[in-house]
């Protein structure tokens, strides 16, 4: 029987994958995808926890927040991809190592 504990554990694994991808990948597209994975891990966690009964009651707040996070993820993807297209003009492979102007 799969219960919400399994879902929580799965979301932890997903989040770890996301962080790993964030730190190791050089391509900006891959980094964005990692961020999306992390967001989805968080969503899964929210939903799983909201399925739990707490003193006989079910909290639906987690599901509501998950909807907001999906919205946020969409916005973030739109803005992130927009920036990415801009950066594409300067460097063909959008590797993070090509952009270190933030130092100055």
């Amino acid at each position: 029987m799969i219960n919400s504990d399994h879902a929580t554990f799965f979301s932890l694994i997903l989040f770890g994958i996301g962080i790993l991808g964030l730190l190791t990948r050089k391509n900006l597209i891959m980094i964005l995808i990692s961020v999306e994975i992390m967001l989805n891990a968080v969503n899964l966690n929210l939903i799983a926890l909201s399925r739990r009964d707490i003193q006989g009651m079910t909290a639906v707040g987690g599901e509501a927040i998950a909807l907001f996070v999906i919205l946020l993820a969409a916005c973030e993807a739109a803005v992130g991809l927009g920036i990415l297209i801009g950066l594409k003009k300067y460097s063909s492979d959008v590797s993070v190592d090509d952009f270190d102007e933030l130092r100055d």
Partner: protein
Amino acid sequence: MASMNLLLALVIIIPIFSALLIAFTGRSFPSFAGWIAAGAVLLSFAFAVPVALQGIAGNATELHLWNFFFTKTLSIDVAFRVDELSGIMLFVVLGVGGLIHFYSIEYMKHDRSRGRFFALLNAFISFMLILILGNNLLMLFAGWEGVGFASYALIGFWYERQAPAKAGIKAFITNRVGDFGFMIGIFLLCWLTGSGSLAEINARCVELKNVTVNIGGMPFGYLELVALMLFLGACGKSAQFPLHAWLPDAMEGPTPVSALIHAATMVTAGIYMVCRLDGVFAAADTVREIMLLGALVTALGAAIVACAQTDLKRILAYSTISQLGYMMAGAAVMAKGTAIFHLATHAVFKALLFLSAGSVMHALSDKLDIREMGGLIRKIPVTGIVMIVGALGLAGVPLFAGYYSKEMIIGAVAADNYFAAALLIVGAAITAFYSARMIMLVFFGESRFDDETSKHCHESNWIMILPLIILAVGTLIVGHLHVSEILGHIEEENLPWVFYSALASVIFGGGFGIYYYRTHLSHSTPWKEFIKTGFGWDAAVDRVLIQPITELAKWVRDYLDKAGIDSLAHGMAHSAGALGETMRTLQSGSIGTYLGYAVFGLAILLWFIVP
């Protein structure tokens, strides 16, 4: 009385306004500065006359402006008061001051920074008015410090040269020593009486006479302590021994400044203060003994030193110190009338002498050494005659101002102490001697200056001569005014021996001076050179006080400041720099690294948040 208040306000405001006006426009219109300055002081004098006459008649004018500050126990107003004493001082300060301002128009005509000169001169008059008219100790002190500043700035007027700049600093620092005592005196008085008002303090001193304080187990009279501190302040300002050494050096300033500040008005502020707080001094018998002793040392010592000087203005400076000693002696025996009388006469004849000396300098292209003068009466007769009148006033010849006031001081001192009076009579003989020596060496005998100087030698023009003539007439008149009686009856010993011996000493001293220097100089001897340096006082102070302090200052600079504080400060700066140098490598600009930091930070946060 309302009109009197208005006049009093005008008297004070006009010089302040004029000083500011010249300070801001003097650079653009230097030729008007002198006329504005002199006009302002003379106008102020015209307004002051009715107020001062009212005050002298016993109808004091009081002007309360606003509250300066108040605490639970002490309230100080910005307030002015003209009574008998300040009335006389008003005449002295504004009358003599106005004439000196007028004289300065011509004297300073060729100086390029005369805007600064007249602004400072007017500022001095303003501060002096605050000093003499202030109704409480704090106002008096504000004026006191203000005139000290003006004096410093005017001694060092020609600051491009080293000697005036140094003399200014010396005057200021010496005064600081006195002011330190004066301030402590003021604090102690305010603490004891809970009031700053001069009249209230004087009134309460009788009942407070027996208040004592314990210092190291010894009981001291509280008022004795206060009086001692106030006397220290008076010593600084009025150039009394041992704080007298700044006054001869102050002669580096322009001659009108010497006349106004270092002879007629500012240096008498100490005497004025002692007379103003006579209630305090009346309750301090022991301190008055010390004052009398100090005054005698000053009066005699400075008179002897004056005999050996060869610089015309330094003769007059030492003479001023000596005459201030006479005033202090009068104040010490609680005969404030005589002290103020001598103050007034001295202001007139000493201003006259200084201004004549300025006229002599003008004629001789700024020469001051009396060894290079002589026979000038034929070249500049008007200056010569007025200066002789001034010298007669100084020497104390009958009919001239100094005779009456000096005689009264000696008489008042005789009522207290015969020995002191005898010493003052000896001092009078020495005064007459150096006055005669000065006049003989400058105006009579053979001419000792070169032909070049002789060719340029000329009488000054009317702007300079007019004040001289007015002051010469004043020297003849002022002695016959009964100034001393305004301030109450004086215990005077009308002993014939005092009168006759004083007169005899003047005749003897003056006659000997005239005879001795009738044709030529006397030779310089090592003894005379030693006396000329003020009995080596400056050198002694230098060795005992200034050199050790300089050494200490150097030690502090090298070991405390440079090695201690500086290295601490530099160390902090350097370590901050090194830290920054290390930290800047963290900022690589690489997005990947930054993301790593972010995750690391998140991990730390979680570590603390998750229980």
